[in-house]
């Protein structure tokens, strides 16, 4: 009896078991929340509020980051391509890499850093200060009013944040191509090349990625918040864990989604 309790505590306390526990918690939370998805219209106010917090307030940082990523991409590739005499292919490189890879991953990272951390902190505080328990007592499922609106909002805003990031990145690439002296590529050639190589299905692929990443980031953040126990210190570590887990998940999933899409 003693030995079995020892092995049980070992299983529960080591890293591998905590990893599987996290996955399990996330899946359970997803399952419980999906049941409330048909009730989304009843939670419209909360959804709109989350859209505002997640989407609208993230736009400035998304715009700045994507502009410079597009610009640097054009700069780096332009330097090499100008030596090869093929600067017009900057359009194709920036166009495809922004819409298929850079924009979804970058937006998801920003979401994890800016929104995921805030969601975890909020829910962890509610959990630590027993607000979640109070909801349970009132027979209001936390999944219904805390998790579901956030997930729906994530699904709604991610395509839009993704397309904004993509187009601003393209603009950044175009400006660099036009004004940097060793590239000096006319904008219409840049756009023509971009359109020659980038098709709308590429944008769809990027949007699918962004949806998966956004949904996962918010789910991980909510789960991490709701499993927090203890006090303010645990809230902080939960936030850190939420962000790190989200980023690892994004990079890991990105590889497999890209592999599946090609």
């Amino acid at each position, binding site marked *: 009896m003693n030995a079995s309790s020892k092995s049980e505590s070992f299983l529960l306390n080591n890293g591998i078991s905590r990893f599987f526990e996290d996955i399990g918690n996330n899946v359970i939370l997803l399952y419980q929340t999906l049941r409330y998805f048909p009730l989304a219209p009843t939670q419209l106010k909360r959804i*709109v*509020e989350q859209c*505002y917090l997640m989407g609208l307030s993230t736009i400035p940082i998304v715009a700045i980051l994507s502009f410079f990523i597009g610009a640097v991409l054009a700069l780096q590739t332009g330097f090499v391509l100008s030596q090869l005499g093929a600067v017009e292919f900057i359009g194709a490189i920036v166009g495809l890499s922004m819409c298929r890879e850079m924009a979804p991953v970058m937006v998801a990272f920003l979401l994890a850093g800016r929104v995921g951390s805030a969601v975890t902190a909020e829910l962890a505080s509610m959990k630590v200060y027993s607000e979640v328990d109070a909801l349970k007592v009132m027979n209001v499922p936390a999944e219904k009013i805390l998790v579901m609106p956030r997930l729906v909002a994530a699904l709604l805003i991610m395509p839009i944040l993704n*397309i904004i990031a993509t187009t601003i990145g393209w603009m950044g690439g175009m400006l660099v191509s036009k004004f940097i002296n060793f590239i000096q590529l006319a904008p219409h050639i840049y756009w023509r090349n971009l*359109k020659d190589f*980038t098709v709308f299905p590429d944008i769809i692929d990027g949007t699918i990625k962004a949806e998966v990443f956004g949904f996962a980031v918010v789910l991980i953040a909510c789960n991490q918040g709701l499993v927090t126990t203890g006090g303010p210190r645990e809230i902080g570590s939960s936030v850190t864990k939420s962000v790190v887990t989200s980023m690892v998940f994004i990079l890991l999933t990105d590889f497999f989604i890209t592999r599946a899409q090609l």
Partner: protein
Amino acid sequence: MNKSQSISVGIFFIIGISLLWVVQRQMSDKAVQASEGYEVVARFENLLQLRVGDDIRMAGVRIGSVQYTGLKDRTPTAIFKIDNEFQIPSDSLASIGMAGLLGNNLVSIDMGSSPTPVSPGGEVKTQAGYDINHVVNEIGALSQQVGGALKNFEAILGAQQGEEGMFQTLGRLLKENDKKLTQTVSNLEAITAQLASGEGTLGKLLMEDEIYEELKTISADLQNTLSEGEALLSDTREIVAHVKTGQGTLGGLIYGETDLAVEVEAMIADLREFSAKLNNPDSTIGKLLTDDKLYGEVQGLMRKANQTLDGLGDSAPISAVGAVAKPLF
């Protein structure tokens, strides 16, 4: 949540969705929409790298795009979507070409001259395009040939393991004959300088007009002479013809049976007889000709005569003096 937040979220979604729509339109505008054209079928031997959405160009103008590629009845078939404003002459030929070095393809249509266009749903004639692999293979074979040719050339020109090549031989010859060549060149220079200044026979020939005039006169004289010669020749021909017909003395002599000919024959017979007599040692002239004794006698006679004359010669001055002195005494 206040009202302004809702408005912001509304604007956010509208902008986002319109942006998606604009990008979708921009990305898709290179493909001809289904409602904007008619379909034409093209059957190729090989579709190479042709993909849906590739351009169709006639005389360089984009007239549509590829709508479908695949195998139909075991034949590689492409369906083109052609803009309504363009019509393809029925004798046009479609081929698959390369739009860039990175593997982009396009369908190039060589515009025909037929007044009847390909009808919607009709088939356009095709010809084989250039397969880049084929071209690369050709280049490979060609480079091998060029390599072989260069090798032969090298063998001709360059030294091959101790043997002397053409250049080496030339170099050696030039080195050995350096002085002679220099001398020859300087001679040539001197000759050409003389020629240029009109010196020497050739120089004069080249530079002076007098010689030219003289040559002209000579040639005119020659021409005259030739014409005279021609006249002479024609006269001769006439004479020969005359002779051939047996006319005249000569003609009679050669061809005719005239008295003259008989006389000549008789004369020849006499001459023969005379020579026979000459050859006969018994005859007087024969003896004279053949008998050495007679020759010796004649020689002795001649000697005596000589002596007599010599005697006369020696006494002549004395007799001359005597004759002069006679009146004195």
